[in-house]
């Protein structure tokens, strides 16, 4: 028999907590990659083809979230003159982070050579060496779940990409494209990989016996007594990106005319399409994080749906009461708020619990997006109001509503305490690292495009393109001679294009 392990005897039943359920080998909890790697040759006939297909498809779904899902969601909310730059920030995150992940990102996040619980050795699997013929079972499922390590690499790669792309919404319309590219590379290296390692790779915020949780609540057989819950990236992805967005918005500064001139979304249908694609891709993000098509992944699918439906309605109700109308942008934003909030909690909640988590997330974020006007920072597309706020709520909400260990289910306060701690740690690490990188770039490359260029439109200046052919321009066609192009900051280049 080629694959005796395809069919588990019974449907894996969800027992309430997240990956702690699979703690059959004592070290396999939230900690990925804790089982020994098997050489491919010995294990080839043991690959679980169902799980492998599942993970590869889910990884592809997560890519759909960034390109084009997030690019459209953000692009529609910018102004006519800057949609291309906004979409390019998502596409370029794909380019930069996709390469870095293969070079050293995977090794730095999930390598076995742990350095102080903060990162793994980036050179252990440099260029994915030593991973191309291995089979892993990251959560130690018995009887199924063996996947090629490269499938796991691919799935994790897509998470790093979208986390960087999420940040771009905070600094729309005004940032040098070159500075953004360098920032993407630095930030994913010094903020994303370490936090991914700490939470998922067996570092300080995991359930290892050397983790923060073990230090506070003790450990049994090498696993913390209280296992931090972050199923699919509430801390690693959303709090991390949200905090980075807040710091960048503060360092980079406001768009010219922020709070005075109208900066309403220029193409709401694009934003709606983007939100729909994000929702679709998010099934890969959340259900895929189970890394196997089992009972928990089905529960995760349901919870991802119910929380998101509830969040959309929650947002719309707040809008109707406060502003008098339920808006399309509100529905799209509510969808994203719900998806963010359920991300860390989706494996630990019941469907009813997910409704509670979702409706609170929608209402909370609908109120939070107004804060930037009161506090005076220009988080242009509400990365803070949606991702940071819903990410923190989802992470803490998992502690309240987890059916196995949650406060509201009689599990005591411990789970909630560790959830608050991992959220706070992520906020501090992401905040400090982003601040250092942002200030360093500010004093070297600089963040802002020149003022006149910003007013005229960043698409023309940074990319020499227009999204919409609103006025057909005269002139001739010819091949540009190499190196003879006008510099991007040369505002003379814009004359004529503006008339």
């Amino acid at each position, binding site marked *: 028999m080629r694959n005796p392990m395809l069919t588990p005897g019974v449907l894996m039943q969800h027992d309430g907590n997240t990956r702690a359920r699979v703690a059959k080998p004592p070290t396999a909890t939230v900690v990925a990659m804790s089982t020994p790697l098997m050489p491919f040759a010995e294990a080839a006939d043991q690959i679980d083809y169902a799980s492998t297909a599942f993970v590869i498809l889910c990884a592809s779904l997560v890519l759909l979230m960034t390109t084009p899902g997030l690019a459209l969601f953000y692009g529609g909310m910018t102004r006519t003159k800057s949609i291309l730059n906004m979409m390019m920030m998502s596409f370029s995150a794909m380019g930069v982070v996709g390469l870095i992940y293969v070079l050293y990102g995977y090794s730095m996040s999930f390598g076995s050579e742990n350095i102080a619980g903060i990162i793994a050795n980036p050179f252990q699997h440099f260029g994915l060496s030593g991973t191309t013929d291995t089979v892993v079972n990251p959560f130690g499922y018995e009887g199924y779940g063996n996947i090629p390590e490269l499938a796991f690499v691919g799935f994790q790669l897509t998470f790093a990409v979208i986390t960087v792309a999420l940040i771009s919404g905070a600094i729309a319309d005004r940032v040098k494209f070159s500075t953004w590219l360098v920032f993407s590379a630095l930030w994913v290296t010094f903020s994303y990989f370490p936090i991914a390692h700490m939470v998922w790779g067996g570092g300080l915020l995991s359930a290892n016996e050397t983790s923060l949780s073990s230090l506070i609540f003790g450990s049994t057989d090498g696993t913390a007594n209280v296992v931090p819950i972050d199923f699919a990236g509430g801390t690693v992805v959303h709090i991390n990106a949200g905090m980075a967005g807040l710091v960048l918005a503060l360092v980079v500064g406001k768009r010219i005319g922020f709070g005075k001139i*109208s900066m*309403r979304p220029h193409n709401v249908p694009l934003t709606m399409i983007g939100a729909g694609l994000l929702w679709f891709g998010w099934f890969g993000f959340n259900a895929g994080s189970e890394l196997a098509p089992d009972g928990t992944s089905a529960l995760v699918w349901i919870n991802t749906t119910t929380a998101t439906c509830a969040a959309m309605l929650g947002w719309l109700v707040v*809008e109707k009461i406060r*502003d008098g*109308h339920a808006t399309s942008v509100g529905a799209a934003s509510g969808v994203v708020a719900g998806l963010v909030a359920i991300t860390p909690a989706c494996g630990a909640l019941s469907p009813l619990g997910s409704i509670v988590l979702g409706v609170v997330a929608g209402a909370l974020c609908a109120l939070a997006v107004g804060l930037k006007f009161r506090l005076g920072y220009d988080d242009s597309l509400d990365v803070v109001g949606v991702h940071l706020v819903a990410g923190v709520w989802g992470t803490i909400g998992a502690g309240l509503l987890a059916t196995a260990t949650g406060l509201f289910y009689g599990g005591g306060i411990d789970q909630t305490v560790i959830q608050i701690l991992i959220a706070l740690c992520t906020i501090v690490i992401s905040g400090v690292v982003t601040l250092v990188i942002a200030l360093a770039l500010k004093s070297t490359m600089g963040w802002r495009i020149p003022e006149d260029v910003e007013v005229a439109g960043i698409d023309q200046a940074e990319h020499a393109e227009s999204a919409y052919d609103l006025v057909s321009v005269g002139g001739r066609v010819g091949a540009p001679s190499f190196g003879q192009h006008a510099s991007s900051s040369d505002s003379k280049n814009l004359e004529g294009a503006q008339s």
Partner: protein
Amino acid sequence: MKLVTAIIKPHQLDEVKEALEAFGIQGMTISEAHGYGRQRGHSEVYRGAEYTVDFVPKSRIEVLVDDMDASSVVDVILKAAQTGRIGDGKIWVVPVEDVARVRTGERGVEAI
């Protein structure tokens, strides 16, 4: 000769066009315009932030007519464009010195 210019609500455009055709007008020029009068603009809310949109979309119709038709054409447009609600628009008439048809070179009333 006169130039009749009308600023109307965009969704009244078809009715006005048909009424002008029925009256016997042979051609007209349409452009998209933005503006406001006594109704001012309207407000839109995105993510809780209220934006006042001063310039609302309008259609501008321009028709060249013989002197004696000008008053009737204004009436025709007025009747077709009127909804009775704020923002219905405005019509004005100005004298035109000369007109030329590009294809044939005809001038004056012949060119209308």
